[in-house]
């Protein structure tokens, strides 16, 4: 990898100065420059919903718990200790004494309660507030049915003790708190200075205004150019923080981002174009990073549209995809082929059920359904949102189905939000390409969505046995019992095939070898305080 300075002039200057300032170079501030993919909509943890926003916010705010940099298990954040009642309903968090806001004022349990109240205020309209609905009264308050926030399960016992009471046991709650910004704390006292607490556009998140409690503070925000974070001296664990600053670049074009990496403008890209993977494998192997990511790429069936009403047709389609070839030749990012819905090895859970059978079985299933060799099979249309990668996958699978089953599938693309409208509202599709990325590390995330009435099911598939298993899992007393129920749910999904799993995602990006303290994680979260640059 060549890392050259910006211009020829500069490189000449550098050459002249290298000898003289070798010592000064060591003391160069540690600024990590990273491609962020998008321009953040806002930096208010309670007003945003996207991944690109979350990436920046994770440097600025910290919740009760935070993540271990290696495997993301919950570790102490603002709370230095916590206990859970025997019935799994009451969580008590003990906040550390030296927890402070970046302006130096102490951070108390009351701040958390006020934050959650703001998050759940109906008028404020937070998109991710449902991640707090496990708590007594939270959903009612959020929907406007309850107006007294003191009647909810959030309680500041004293300045350093926060108590949260749940509706029912939620074994994965700590993982959500550790991984998701929806449970972060916001400085309501500061926000109120800029406008009503229930307004989003008050400007409190601008550079100079924003007060946080994370390892970094907001130094500069140039919209569509860069966001600059600097070290927060008031952070309780400031001694661990190694970087002097982070610069996030809103790299909306991945080809541009890759070129920025090559000219040395970036230390890490957000993504890498598929065509570049082989080049990097060959030329810059130590800059290429491919790591598993907790997400599933799949085709969603609308089970009310013939011939997909017949589960044998769905099974045949699922079996007739050569996933290995697809990954090796089309997606190319060392993805893992998916033969079940749940991700193998999510927090200790691996589905045992899997799609099994060869092409002969697929053809037999199709013949049993009444379409031997694809004859007489009604026209099937596959919908995808416009993108070169989705198109390539669809074209390859279309050819596989034609060759292996004799089934003709036509491809239709729609612009992103039209496609989402089709998926969520009109359901006017037969097969639809989809992806699901987990928000937190628990098998629950891939299984809850297929229950009847879930807003993200969108297959119109409904199975009473599956729904019952889902209910029982919520009441399970420990993970062993819960995971056993999940095994049954995964088995139903593999048998019924309302969705055709294709592969599990990976993150593919380029990162300079000088970046250290950065480990592959399943959620693609990387606590920034452990990262440093080797000179």
């Amino acid at each position: 990898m060549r890392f050259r300075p910006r211009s020829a002039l500069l490189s000449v200057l550098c050459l002249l100065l290298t000898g003289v300032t070798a010592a000064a170079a060591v003391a160069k501030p540690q600024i990590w420059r990273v491609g962020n993919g998008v321009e953040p909509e806002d930096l208010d943890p309670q007003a945003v919903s996207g991944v690109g926003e979350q990436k920046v916010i994770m440097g600025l705010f910290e919740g009760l718990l935070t993540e271990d940099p290696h495997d993301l298990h919950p570790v102490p954040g603002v709370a230095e200790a916590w206990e859970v009642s025997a019935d799994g309903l009451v969580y008590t968090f003990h906040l550390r004494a030296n927890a402070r806001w970046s302006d130096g004022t102490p951070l108390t349990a009351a701040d958390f309660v006020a934050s959650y109240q703001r998050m759940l205020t109906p008028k404020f309209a937070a998109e991710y507030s449902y991640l707090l609905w496990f708590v007594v009264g939270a959903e009612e308050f959020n929907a406007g049915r309850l107006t007294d926030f003191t009647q909810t399960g959030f309680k500041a016992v004293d300045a350093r003790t926060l108590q949260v009471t749940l509706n029912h046991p939620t074994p994965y709650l700590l993982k959500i708190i550790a991984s998701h910004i929806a449970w972060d704390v916001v400085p309501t006292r500061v926000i109120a200075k800029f406008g009503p607490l229930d307004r989003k556009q008050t400007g409190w998140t601008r550079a100079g205004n924003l007060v946080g409690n994370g390892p970094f503070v907001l130094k500069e925000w140039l919209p569509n150019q860069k966001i600059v974070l600097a070290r927060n001296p008031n952070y309780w664990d400031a001694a661990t923080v190694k970087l002097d600053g982070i610069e996030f670049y809103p790299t909306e074009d991945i080809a541009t981002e890759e070129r920025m990496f090559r000219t040395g403008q970036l230390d890490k890209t957000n993504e890498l174009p598929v065509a570049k993977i082989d080049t990097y494998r060959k030329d810059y192997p130590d800059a290429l990073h491919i790591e598993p990511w907790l997400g599933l790429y799949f085709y969603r069936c609308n089970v009310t549209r013939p011939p997909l009403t017949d589960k044998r047709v769905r099974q045949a389609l699922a079996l007739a995809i050569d996933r290995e070839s697809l990954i090796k030749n089309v997606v190319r990012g060392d993805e893992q082929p998916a033969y079940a819905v749940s991700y193998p090895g999510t927090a200790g859970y691996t589905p045992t059920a899997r799609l099994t059978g060869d092409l002969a079985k697929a053809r037999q299933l199709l013949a049993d359904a009444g379409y031997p060799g694809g004859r007489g099979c009604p026209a099937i249309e596959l919908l995808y949102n416009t993108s070169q990668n989705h198109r390539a996958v669809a074209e390859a699978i279309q050819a596989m189905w034609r060759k292996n089953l004799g089934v003709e599938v036509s491809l239709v693309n729609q612009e992103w939000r039209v496609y989402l409208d089709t998926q969520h509202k009109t359901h006017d599709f037969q097969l639809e390409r989809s992806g699901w990325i987990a928000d937190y590390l628990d098998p629950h995330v891939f299984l809850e969505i297929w229950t009847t009435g879930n807003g993200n099911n969108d297959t119109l598939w409904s199975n009473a046995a599956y729904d019952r298993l889902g209910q029982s899992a919520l009441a399970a007393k420990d993970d062993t019992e819960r995971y056993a129920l999940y095994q049954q749910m995964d088995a139903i999904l593999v048998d019924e095939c309302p969705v055709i799993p294709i592969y599990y995602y990976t993150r593919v990006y380029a990162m300079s070898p000088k970046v250290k303290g950065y480990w592959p994680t399943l959620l693609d979260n990387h606590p920034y305080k452990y990262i440093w640059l080797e000179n």
Partner: protein
Amino acid sequence: MSSRSGSTPSSSLNNSAAPSPAEPPERGHSLWSDAWHRLRQNRLAVAGGCLVAALALACAFAPGIFHLSYEENNLDLGAAPPSAQHWLGTDTLGRDLLARILYGGRISMMVGLVATFVALTIGVTYGAVAGYFGGKLDALMMRIVDIIYSLPFTIFVILLVVMLKDPMGKFDNWLAGYAFFANSRGVGKVLLLFAAIGAVEWLTMARIVRSQIMAIKKMEYIEAARSLGLGRARIIFRHMLPNALGPIVVYATLTIPSVMLLESFLSFLGLGVDAPMSSWGTLIKDGSEKMEEFWWLLVFPGLTFSLTLFSLNFLGDGLRDALDIRAAKD
């Protein structure tokens, strides 16, 4: 300034150059036949014309004759440089690039020529009428142009796709009932594509024609024609437009590449041809994203595209020269 075609002697030329209102209609024939004669003398124009015709024929018939398939893939082969088997190489899914360019040419040439023709017809008529009549009518027509310029095109196209999805589906099914169209799905979508492009591409043409007509209106011979009581349509189309032909031809040749590339943006919005069918615009767009790794994916579609445009431009320049009645007078 004597152009090569100017040396062609012709007895009828002097009359047509200074349009005498009394000229019999047959004179028009000799104008066109002389123009045709001059055009044939212009070697570049002839070469351009032949090349476009050859490309069009190749796109139309070669895939059928040589049994080329735009969708037959070979995933294990992947993107391979030109070889004896695949003359122009293969794309990342191992599909023959030559076949994809030829099939893509069908849609791109059709879009380029038909949509440009639509834009040309609307733009010239609209601009000529506004420029000739002037006054309140011109003001109204030009404000309408301002409005159409400003409306958000992306939203217009998405709306078009969504609103006309069902009617187009019905139209396709109806067409599929006829043997000739049995294998051509998505004809409705392509027609819609022309409509969408036609709706925006005529605007600048209209403004250019209008300004030319306004200038020509003040020329003596038009005043003369008017004082002799010739009909308006006759004055506009027989006496004014031929004199504005140069910029019209040039702008028409400028419109062709922009509509071909616009097609790839529209296919992003779900309008146009469906994958795995290709067009030159989408091939160039895809190739540009992989140009460092697989140069042939950009170079060959780009070359075909450029060759077509160059040819059309030479043909256009030749047409302009051939129809330039004044230059021919020298």
